C-alpha cells in the first residue's frame, strides 16, 4: 500500500494501452474522436466524404481500444486509489497480491477488448455470424472465470491463454500473415503503422 504499488499497478494495467494510444492514435486527431465517441458510425464517415476514410480495421482497432480502456479504467481506478491509502492487504486471509492480480487482470481485459473489437468488426463486415458468437462466448468465459473461480492465478493464466489465441486470430483477420510478421520483426516492413503514421 505504497506509492510503489500504486505506480506499479497503474503502469502494469494501463501501460500497454497508453503506449498504443500514444503511438498510434495521439497523432491523428480523427482517431481520437473515434476513440472518444466509442464506436465508429456511418454518420461520421458520411460527414467525411473527401478524406480517405479511415479503414474499417482502423476503426475496429480504435473502438476496441476505447472500449477496453474504459472498461479497464472503470474496473480498476477505484482499487488503484485505495492502494494509496492506509491499510493492509489480505488481513482477513485474502491473497495479499490483490492489487497485482487486479492489475494484470485489467491489462488482459483491455487487450482482449481490443482484439475482440477487431475480430467483431471483421465478423460483422464479412457476415460471419459465428465470429460474433465466439467473441461473445469468450467474453463470457473470461468474465465467468473471475466470478466462479476463486483462484486468481488460474484465472490469470487462462485469460492470458485466451488473450494470445484471440490476438493471433485478430492478427490474421486484419490481414497479417507469417510473412508480414517476419518482415516486421526484421524491421523491413515499410508499411507498418509505426513506420509512417497512416491508416491501413
Amino acid at each position, binding site marked *: 500500500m505504497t506509492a510503489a504499488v500504486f505506480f506499479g499497478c497503474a503502469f502494469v494495467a494501463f501501460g500497454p494501452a497508453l503506449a498504443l494510444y500514444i503511438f498510434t492514435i495521439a497523432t491523428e486527431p480523427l482517431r481520437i474522436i473515434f476513440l472518444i465517441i466509442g464506436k465508429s458510425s456511418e454518420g461520421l464517415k458520411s460527414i467525411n466524404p*473527401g478524406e480517405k476514410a479511415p479503414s474499417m480495421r482502423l476503426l475496429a482497432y480504435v473502438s476496441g481500444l476505447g472500449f477496453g480502456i474504459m472498461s479497464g479504467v472503470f474496473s480498476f481506478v477505484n482499487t488503484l486509489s485505495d492502494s494509496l491509502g492506509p491499510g493492509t492487504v489480505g488481513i482477513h486471509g485474502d491473497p495479499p497480491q490483490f492489487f497485482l492480480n487486479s492489475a494484470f487482470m485489467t491489462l488482459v481485459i483491455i487487450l482482449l477488448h481490443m482484439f475482440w473489437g477487431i475480430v467483431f468488426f471483421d465478423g460483422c463486415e464479412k457476415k460471419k455470424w459465428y465470429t460474433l458468437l465466439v467473441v461473445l462466448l469468450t467474453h463470457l468465459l473470461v468474465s465467468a472465470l473471475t*466470478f466462479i473461480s476463486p483462484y486468481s492465478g488460474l484465472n490469470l493464466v487462462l485469460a492470458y491463454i485466451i488473450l494470445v489465441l484471440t490476438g493471433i486470430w485478430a492478427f490474421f483477420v486484419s490481414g497479417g500473415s507469417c510473412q508480414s510478421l517476419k518482415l516486421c520483426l526484421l524491421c523491413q516492413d515499410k508499411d507498418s503503422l509505426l513506420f509512417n503514421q497512416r491508416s491501413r
Partner: protein
Amino acid sequence: MPEDRCGAGTFGGRVMLTFMASDSEEEVCDERTSLMSAESPMPRSCQEGRQGLENGEGAAQWVGSHQQSKASGQEPESEFGCQDRQRRDERTRGQESEEDHEEDPDRYVCSGVPGRPPGLEEELTLKYGAKHVIMLFVPVTLCMIVVVATIKSVRFYTEKNGQLIYTPFTEDTSSVGQRFLNSVLNTLIMISVIVIMTIFLVVLYKYRCYKFIHGWLIMSSLMLLFLFTYIYLGEVLKTYNVAMDYPTLFLTVWNFGAVGMVCIHWKGPLVLQQAYLIMISALMALVFIKYLPEWSAWVILGAISVYDLVAVLCPKGPLRMLVETAQERNEPIFPALIYSSAMVWTVGMAKLDPSSQGALQLPYDPEMEEDSCDSLGEPSYPEVFAPPLPGYPGEELEEEEERGVKLGLGDFIFYSVLVGKAAATGSGDWNTTLACFVAILIGLCLTLLLLAVFKKALPALPISITFGLIFYFSTDNLVRPFMDTLASHQLYI
C-alpha cells in the same frame, strides 16, 4: 478568510467587493459559455464578415476569408499596434460583461470560396475541425485535471464555509422538498443576476462606456490573479504542510499575478497566456465548487445551459443584440478572455509572410474556430498573418498550422465545475468523475460536429452539460454501487 467574507458578502466595501467579484465570476461564467464559430453572416460579403471577424465576431471559412481578405483592404499593418491594444482593452473589459455577449458574436456563416468544390471545403472543414477538436480537448482536459486534483487533495474546497450572496437560501433544511425549493430559488436569483448584468453590459456597450467596462474587467482579473491565487497557494501549502515565509509568498504571488496581467491583457507568449487562462478558469471553478451548495450547483448548471442556448440562438437575446451592435459599428466585440489555441504568437507580426504583406489580418478562423463569449482573442489577431494566396499548395498547410481555435473561458469554468462537483460529492469515487469527464468531451466533440453540419453558431454548454448531468446522476446512482461490488471481489465484466 477573505473569500469567506467575500462569499458571505457582509458590509459596505466588502459587499461591493463581493458584488464585483461575484459579478465578475458570474459574468465570467456567463459570457464564456459558448463556442463561437468565427463565421460571418450569410448575406454579408465575406469582406464585411472579415471585418466582423476582426472584431471578434467570426470568420468566414478560412478559405473564403483568405481570398476575401486579400481582396478587401484589411487594416494596414501599422494599425496593428493600436488595434491590438484596443482589442486587448476591450478584451479585458469584455471579461465579465463580455462573456454574455461573447457568446453571440461569431454566429454567422460565410459562404466558402467560390470556385472550390463544396465537398472539398467540407472535407477541409472537417479535417480542421477534427484538429481543432483536439486542440480544445487538451486545455479542457488540463483545466479539469487541475480542478479534480485540487478537489481530491485540498480539503478547503470541499468544506462548506458559507455561500455567495447570490445563493442566499440555505440547503440545510429539514425536508427534501424545502431543499429543492431553495435550490430552485437560488438558481433563479443567480440566473436573473446574470441576465441583468448582461443587459447592463449591452446598455453600456450601446452607450459606448468603454472605459467603465475596461476598468471592470481589469479589476476582476486583478482579483483572480492575486487574491484567489494567494488563497489557493495558502491552502495548498497548508495541505502539504509546507512552510513558507511571507516575503517569499508575496514575491511569488506578485510575480505570478503581474506576469498574468501582462500576458492576458497585453502581449505575451501564447503558451504562457494559455496556461494563465487555464489557471484562472480553474481558480474560478474552484470558487464555484466551494461556494455553491450541492443541489443549487446542479440546478444552476442546467439553467445556465438553457440560458446559453436561448441567449445565443434567440433573435432577441442580449448577446445577439450585442453582436449586432458591434457589427454595425464594425468594432471588435469586447475582447474578453478567451482561450486561444492559435499556434503562432507574433508580436508585431514578425511572422508575416513577406509575400502577402499587403493583406492584413486575416480572420483566421476556419469555421471551426469558436470563441466563446469572449470572442476574439486579441492575441489571435496579430497572430493571424495574412494567408498566402490560395492555390499554392504549400501555403495551405502553413495557414492551417497557424490557425487556432478559441473557446471562451466560461465553458472551461462550467465544465470544470461539473467535473469538480462530481469529484467532490461522489464518495471518493473516481468512476463518476471519469464518466463526467468523458461526457463533457463527447459533448464538445458533438457540438463541433453539429457546427460543421449546421454552419451556424452554437453554444458550447448545452450538449456537454446535459451529457455531463445525465452521466453524473446515472453513474452515481446506478453504476457506482455495481462497480464497487465488482471491484471489491475482483470480478470483471
